[in-house]
């Protein structure tokens, strides 16, 4: 794996050529869907001529293919956007380009970011960087594998319920899901607007901090963004860390527990106080999530109808055109989520499902708030298992959803949460731990993780 500093002060053209060559050599992983070679090389030459400058001048990166970018397609790994060429770039990409970074291509994902394994991509599954028979995790699977394979030092991802953290954990890299509202979502394909966040995957926490510092901040094009609060900090004194006991039950893979416990021991050795705490509503978080999020998906995906952009099916009436374009353009998981959303929002069911879920969400947030009165940081494994086998969970959507059980609570509450490597199973599969913080404590989480990285 590579870090940002390896790419600074050297030939930008060589950086880009090397990264593109590496992406091509790694084709069997199916992590990268497209390369924007011409535009990337043009920008590299501008960097080398001194026409583009900045703190990341000449550093190549890859964005998940749900970020709108110039110089190639933006597909969201779906058939309906298969040939879509965006007329604009997302704010996060613009901010990185303003610092001289170079987007070389787009990473694979579950179509419209619906999934936890990147098996729902319309363009084929992404394979785990360590074991090609296993999943990359998802939905930012391509982003995680591209970092783990050393194609680029960092990638951008989106995290609605764990889509950065879980693939980061499955591939042994750092993944950051910031506080809701930290990074502008302008120009990013929307999934569930009340929990969608944009974050970074990198080989180390230092690089993640560098990128977060650049992409965070208020954007007038996204009214949900917070005034810029992200600023790197250092750890002062020792912290109080709560390990959520409901996330360490016998349902969790023993090797995942072992790696988590070894990380806890390291925290203790560094002088931090670590205690067991209870988040009793953890077991309901997934049910809340799979009501709220499909409801928002059914609304957000209404725009893909084959009329103004994207693939249009042959049809003789407008209604047929909508129905057929959507049926052909979406994968099964998209359809399941849209229809569940229609179900929980339909009259007669709204109170029982959607309203009940949003009330339960308040109770979950209250429980988090109470814990944060006594603790600085909460800790869980990122996922109950290491990367599972390709095809193992595809026939059972509920089983697949359970991979998100540890990560959805922070999403529903809008809290920052990061995934950091904690060790390996005996078979060599990476295991990650999740650190969850108070709102706007993103930099503290990263500083704590960085101090632990130096301990290893």
């Amino acid at each position, binding site marked *: 794996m590579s870090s940002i500093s390896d790419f600074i002060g050297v030939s930008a053209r060589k950086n880009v050529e090397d990264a593109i060559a590496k992406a091509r050599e790694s084709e069997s992983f199916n992590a990268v869907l497209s390369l924007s070679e011409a535009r990337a090389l043009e920008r590299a030459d501008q960097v080398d001529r001194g026409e583009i400058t900045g703190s990341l001048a000449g550093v190549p990166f890859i964005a998940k293919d749900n970020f709108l970018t110039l110089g190639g397609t933006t597909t969201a790994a779906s058939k309906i956007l298969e040939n879509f060429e965006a007329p*604009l770039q997302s704010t996060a990409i613009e901010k990185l380009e303003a610092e001289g970074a170079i987007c070389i291509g787009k990473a694979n994902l579950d179509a419209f970011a619906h999934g936890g394994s990147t098996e729902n991509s319309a363009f084929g599954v992404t394979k785990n960087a360590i074991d090609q028979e296993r999943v990359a995790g998802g939905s930012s699977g391509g982003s995680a594998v591209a970092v783990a394979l050393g194609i680029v030092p960092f990638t951008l991802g989106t995290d609605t319920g764990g889509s950065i953290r879980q693939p980061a954990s499955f591939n042994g890299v750092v993944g950051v899901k910031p506080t809701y509202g930290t990074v502008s979502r302008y120009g990013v394909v929307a999934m569930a607007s*009340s929990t969608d966040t944009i974050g970074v995957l990198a080989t180390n926490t230092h690089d993640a901090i560098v990128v977060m510092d650049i992409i965070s901040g208020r954007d007038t094009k996204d009214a949900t963004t917070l005034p810029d609060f992200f600023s790197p900090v250092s750890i002062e004194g020792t912290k109080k860390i709560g390990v959520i006991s409901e996330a360490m039950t016998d349902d969790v893979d023993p090797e995942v527990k072992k790696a988590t416990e070894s990380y806890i021991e390291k925290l203790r050795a560094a002088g931090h106080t670590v205690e067991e705490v209870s988040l009793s509503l953890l077991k309901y978080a997934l*049910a809340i999530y799979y009501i709220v999020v499909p409801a928002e998906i059914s609304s957000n995906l209404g725009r893909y109808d084959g009329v103004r952009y994207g693939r249009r099916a042959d*049809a003789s009436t407008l209604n047929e055109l909508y129905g057929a374009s959507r049926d052909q353009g979406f994968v099964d998981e998209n359809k*399941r989520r849209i*229809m569940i959303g*229609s179900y929980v929002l339909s009259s007669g069911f709204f109170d029982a499902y959607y309203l*009940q879920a949003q009330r*339960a969400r308040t*109770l979950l947030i209250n429980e988090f708030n109470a814990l944060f009165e006594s603790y600085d940081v909460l800790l869980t494994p990122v996922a109950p298992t290491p990367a599972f086998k390709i095809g193992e969970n595809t026939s059972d959507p509920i089983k697949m959803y359970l991979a998100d059980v540890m990560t959805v609570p922070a999403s529903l509450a809008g809290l920052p949460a990061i995934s950091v490597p904690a060790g390996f199973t005996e078979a060599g599969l990476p295991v990650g731990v999740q650190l969850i913080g108070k709102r706007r404590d993103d930099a503290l989480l990263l500083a704590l993780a960085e101090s632990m990285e130096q301990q290893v």
Partner: protein
Amino acid sequence: MTQISDSDVQHLAQLSNLQLADDEVTSLRTDLENIIGYIQQLDELDTSGVEPTYQVTDLQNVWRNDVVDNYGIEKAALLQLAPATEADQIKVPKVL
């Protein structure tokens, strides 16, 4: 456990603007039944008197000036994305 029939699936598909193929209906019926069965566990929670949470930004009333901004994108570039156009407008088949 809520039972979902094939016609329920077709009704949800209609609400969702999805024209499903026949073989999709059966597999979706099983999946939807299982998912709805799973999310029904929220019935166990007493939420009476609890305010719902619809957003987690802590922000209120984010204002902007009421001025037209095309965000740097011209009409022609957007029209170019449409599968069919005529006379500067997006063309669709007959409505009825």
